[in-house]
């Protein structure tokens, strides 16, 4: 009886029983669900075994061609449907590289057979097409391993109708180890954590977010003090998934972390002593205020934006890059509202040596509107449009119309490049057009929300685009920048990667993201406001040391996630600790690495990943590698700094003569912003006692070890 019900239900799923089988609605989804149209099979760019389907069925017309017409129609036999390759192959009636995908007599089989028997027609013109999918529940918590939950999926069609398509779509889990999903859409809890279940059919996709917790809510969950709205949403989520946040960080850790995260520089031993020695209960918020006003903060941010805007490979070279870098630094220093800043950038034009924001558009001498569109949408709106240059995005809504429409805002933008010299310009030509590769027609400017725009003669249509982008209602703009700020401080975006917002990449904490965006808009698009909100939160000030409940948390910020210093931070820190400056050719003595807008004037910067890429927006590589390690343990740079007669260590050895205990603390404070722990101090003192003649070497070796330690290299 039960089997019978299931059969009827499923039969309806592929439309086999109640009405004529539709190619688009019934047949195409089978190939996605059975895995045939996936990217590693017939859905790949090259197809497989000479047979190519559109990826996840996003172009049924092409699939119809491939199945019915290509290769002389060898895949179908309308007179004898059961002899069709399109049935024999997936049922493994004859050898098939992909193995058996469904059984003979299965509902999939019957649907395809009946469609073939009825003449294998393509749906009539104007027949309803899918417009969107909805999944219920969209977010769900599974309590207890092995717990299950059925998802149900509804499709909405162009004629306004809807249909339960749960049986037709393909389900897949982003992380099978956390939650698996059956072909019928039943999710099973496998391990504590969170993931998304992707649902795909006919080029549409959607995701359901799933949390798995092992145990029912803890009865003895501790009460965690909340400093502000950030904590409210972070801790709400943590409580929901039975994770207890780490303890509040020590003053030493907070001090070092805040300095490095806000300003990019280490606290000096004197600054460290002052902060650690203070009994003021409000000393953390006082420090945050001081750091937020420091000029180094603006330089650190300017370097961040210089990476983001690909300044490292700006062909205008030194002068234009410096000008642009200084513009960024000044904007950050005065905390210019970010919407205004972006409007200024968007309208950039003119001479590269005199007009700072012209350099925003001057990445390569040949300006390509598509490249500009991709860059702006990805860096400032968190939308990766690039896929849609060559094909409609396989599992997002972005089409070639979106890509070329967005590019059309920049159709008149051009550059004049004269030997990297003072004659180089970014300007607007009188006319210009972006041509759609399919229609071969000029494309009208089109916003990512779908509305089109017209450009009146003599008008700079970028003004309208900038207004649209920075409008408080824009769904992308504020979320993208607050997410980027969040990631800079907390090591992971609420949406990660930060330039890839999409339905199938849901935020780890949507309420928090929305709230930060609202706060940002309400407080005049001020970056510093959001920084203060983050820095003041208990979330930011949590220890990096995990506890039993949060050891495996990598997304919910139940502790501070350590991150490696970037190249400039590291080099500046080595200079500060050693007291031996680094000279950069062409820059005045005392220049900090952080303030050099581009290029790689020192080995260490290049070795530790100071690359910005001309072609692409790319995260810096934070993976360690052997060249870096060799350079640190064995290289010239550190060796010279440790042994220089002008260095701090040489000076301190004299200054603290006979006071080794204090000298040890001094070295620890300088490098790690903490004093030596008793066991560390004891071990060193006994070595010093044993070999008094090697005092200098021992302190060199200690400094070497501290500067090579993970505790030094990581912000923690």
């Amino acid at each position, binding site marked *: 009886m039960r089997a019978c019900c299931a059969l009827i239900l499923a039969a309806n799923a592929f439309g086999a029983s109640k009405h004529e089988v539709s190619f688009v609605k019934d047949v195409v989804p089978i190939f996605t669900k059975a895995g045939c149209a996936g990217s590693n099979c017939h859905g790949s760019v090259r197809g497989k075994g000479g047979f190519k389907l559109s990826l996840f069925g996003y172009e049924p017309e092409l699939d119809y061609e491939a199945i019915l017409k290509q290769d002389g129609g060898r895949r179908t036999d309308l007179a004898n449907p059961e002899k069709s390759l399109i049935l024999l192959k997936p049922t493994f009636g004859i050898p098939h590289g992909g193995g058996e995908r469904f059984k003979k007599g299965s509902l999939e089989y019957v649907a395809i057979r009946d469609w073939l028997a009825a003449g294998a027609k393509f749906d009539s013109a104007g027949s309803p097409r899918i417009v969107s999918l909805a999944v219920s529940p969209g977010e769900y918590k599974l309590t207890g391993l092995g717990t299950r939950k059925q998802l149900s999926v509804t499709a909405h069609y162009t004629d306004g109708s809807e249909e339960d398509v749960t049986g037709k779509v393909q389900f897949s889990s982003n992380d099978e180890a956390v939650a698996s999903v059956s072909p019928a859409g039943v999710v099973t809890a496998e391990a504590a954590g969170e993931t998304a279940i992707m649902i795909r059919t006919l080029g549409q996709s959607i995701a359901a977010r799933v949390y798995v917790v092992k145990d029912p809510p803890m009865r003895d969950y501790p009460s965690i003090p909340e400093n502000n709205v950030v904590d409210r949403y972070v801790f709400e989520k943590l409580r929901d998934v039975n994770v207890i946040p780490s303890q509040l960080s020590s003053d030493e850790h907070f001090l070092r972390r805040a300095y490095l995260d806000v300003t990019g520089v280490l606290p000096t031993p004197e600054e460290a002593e002052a902060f650690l020695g203070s009994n003021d209960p409000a000393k953390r918020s006082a420090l945050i205020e001081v750091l937020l006003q420091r000029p180094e903060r603006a330089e650190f941010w300017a370097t961040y934006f210089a990476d983001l805007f690909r300044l490292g490979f700006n062909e205008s070279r030194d002068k234009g890059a410096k000008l642009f870098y200084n513009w960024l630094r000044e904007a950050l220093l005065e905390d210019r509202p970010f919407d205004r800043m972006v409007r200024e950038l968007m309208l950039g034009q003119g001479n590269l040596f005199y007009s700072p924001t012209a350099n925003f558009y001057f990445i390569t001498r040949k300006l390509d509107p598509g490249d500009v569109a991709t860059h702006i949408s990805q860096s400032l709106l968190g939308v990766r449009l690039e896929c849609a240059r060559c094909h409609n995005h396989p599992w997002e809504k972005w089409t070639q119309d979106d890509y070329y429409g967005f590019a059309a805002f920049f159709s008149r933008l051009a550059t004049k490049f004269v030997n990297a010299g003072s004659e180089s310009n970014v300007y607007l030509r009188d006319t210009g057009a972006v041509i759609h590769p399919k229609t071969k027609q000029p494309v009208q400017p089109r916003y990512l929300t779908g509305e089109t725009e017209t450009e009146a003669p003599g008008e700079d249509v970028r003004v309208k685009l900038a207004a649209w982008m920075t409008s408080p209602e824009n769904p992308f703009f504020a979320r993208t920048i607050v997410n980027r700020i969040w990631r800079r401080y907390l090591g992971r975006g609420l949406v990660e990667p930060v330039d890839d917002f999409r339905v199938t990449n849901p935020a780890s904490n949507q309420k928090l993201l929305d709230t930060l965006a609202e706060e940002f808009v309400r407080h005049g698009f001020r970056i510093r406001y959001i920084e203060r909100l983050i820095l003041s939160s208990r979330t930011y000030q949590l220890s990096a040391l995990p506890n039993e409940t949060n050891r495996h948390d990598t997304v919910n910020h139940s502790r501070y*996630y350590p991150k490696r210093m970037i190249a400039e931070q590291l080099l500046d820190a080595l200079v500060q600790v050693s007291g031996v400056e680094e000279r950069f050719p062409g820059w005045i003595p005392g220049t900090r690495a952080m303030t050099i807008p581009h290029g790689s004037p020192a080995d260490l910067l290049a070795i530790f990943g100071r*690359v910005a890429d001309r072609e692409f927006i790319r995260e810096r590589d934070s993976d360690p590698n052997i060249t870096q390690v060799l350079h640190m343990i*064995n290289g010239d740079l550190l060796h010279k700094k440790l042994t220089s007669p002008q260095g701090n260590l040489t000076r301190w050895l004299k200054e603290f003569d006979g006071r080794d205990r204090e000298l040890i603390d001094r070295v620890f404070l300088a490098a790690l912003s903490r004093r030596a722990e008793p066991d*560390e101090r004891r071990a060193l003192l006994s070595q010093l006692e044993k070999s008094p003649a090697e005092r200098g070497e021992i302190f060199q070796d200690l400094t070497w070890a501290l500067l090579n330690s*993970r505790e030094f290299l990581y912000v923690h």
Partner: protein
Amino acid sequence: MMDRRAFLKAGSLGLFGSVTWGDALAMRAQAGAASKKNISVIHVLLSGGMSHMDTLDMKPHTRSAFRSVFQPIKTNVAGIEISDRLPLLARQADKYTIIRSATHKISVHERASYLVMSGHEPLATVNHPSMGAVIGKEMGARNELPPYITIPSMTGLWETAGLLPGKYAPFEAGDPNRADYSVRDIKLPMDVDWARMERRRSLLASVDDKFRAYDTSGVFETASSFYQAAYDLVRSPAAKEAFAIEQEPEAMREKYGRTSLGQGALLARRLVEAGVRFVTVSNGYYKWDHHAKVFENLGDRYLPELDRALATLLEDLHNRGLLQTTLVIATGEFGRTPEINVNAGRDHWPNVFSILVAGAGVPGGQIWGASDADGMYVKDNPVEIPDLVTTVFHKVGVDFTKEYHTSIGRPFRVAEGKPLAFLGA
């Protein structure tokens, strides 16, 4: 394909003078190669783009506005002629194939270099790894030496690991033509001995042990493995030996030429001998970009340097029996315009250019493909870069049909071409 008995026979033949010692060694190497793929690659990277019309594809009868001031000369293979500025290379023509019909469509350095090093056209959505990175990942290191080394240093981002982890990026060997050459950071600083190094390590270990509790992602452990690898490299006699170019006889160093390219090629041979899988040798970023005074540049410096370096490399590899297991490729990212510009230079020209390939089963004494009468476009048998890169993977033993995925799941094949049969694939 030669079994052990055939090798012994060949060896004994050698005693009677009909097979040279080098040939015999080559056969032995080949006998080994037949059972297990053990191919290494040396890429002589002519960064900036070498002019084909002045080097490997002479056009003495083209119009004067195009014609090289250099003359063609005969080689040791009848019917093959190359530039008179490459006389040593002319005597090795029986060891290589010249492709005269290489072609692609990218005329800017960065993007073209990316294509040549990775086998893929640049795509904003995929950061493709270079060949050496893929080979390092798929084949692994043979010993404590890094599998992928570049001499003297990366010419640009096209030599990186792309989307692969940083550990697959090339190790930079530095310029072996410097008088005091040593690999950066591989020797201990002058006044630090191993006893002190041990003290440093133990101090470091005690700080790191305390801090380990903060790591839940294993990233510190990964870093530690690099520290271990770095110590191994610093302590490894084999590594020191491989980089110790000063141990080469003076005559051999002279023969390669006392230039960055020459000593680089010699170091490359030492590294391949020591087990490195992929070595790039260049004389620096865009050095062959001769937009002005192309004949002076090539004639006075670049071609004599290349001639000595490459011809000696081929001869030396052959004599040591290594040519059968070493694939040598000499190419830049494109050729240069047939038409000579107002500055007596030649500009970028990807439409047709020449590539020299030798070793690892590549036939010697072969010309493949042809450009048209003026060296402008391909006349016969066009060769696409993705096919060349696929051939490299195929020879080395990398499954070139393997797919990698970007962070958002976009798939791409390691190489998108087909192995080229004329290169013995």
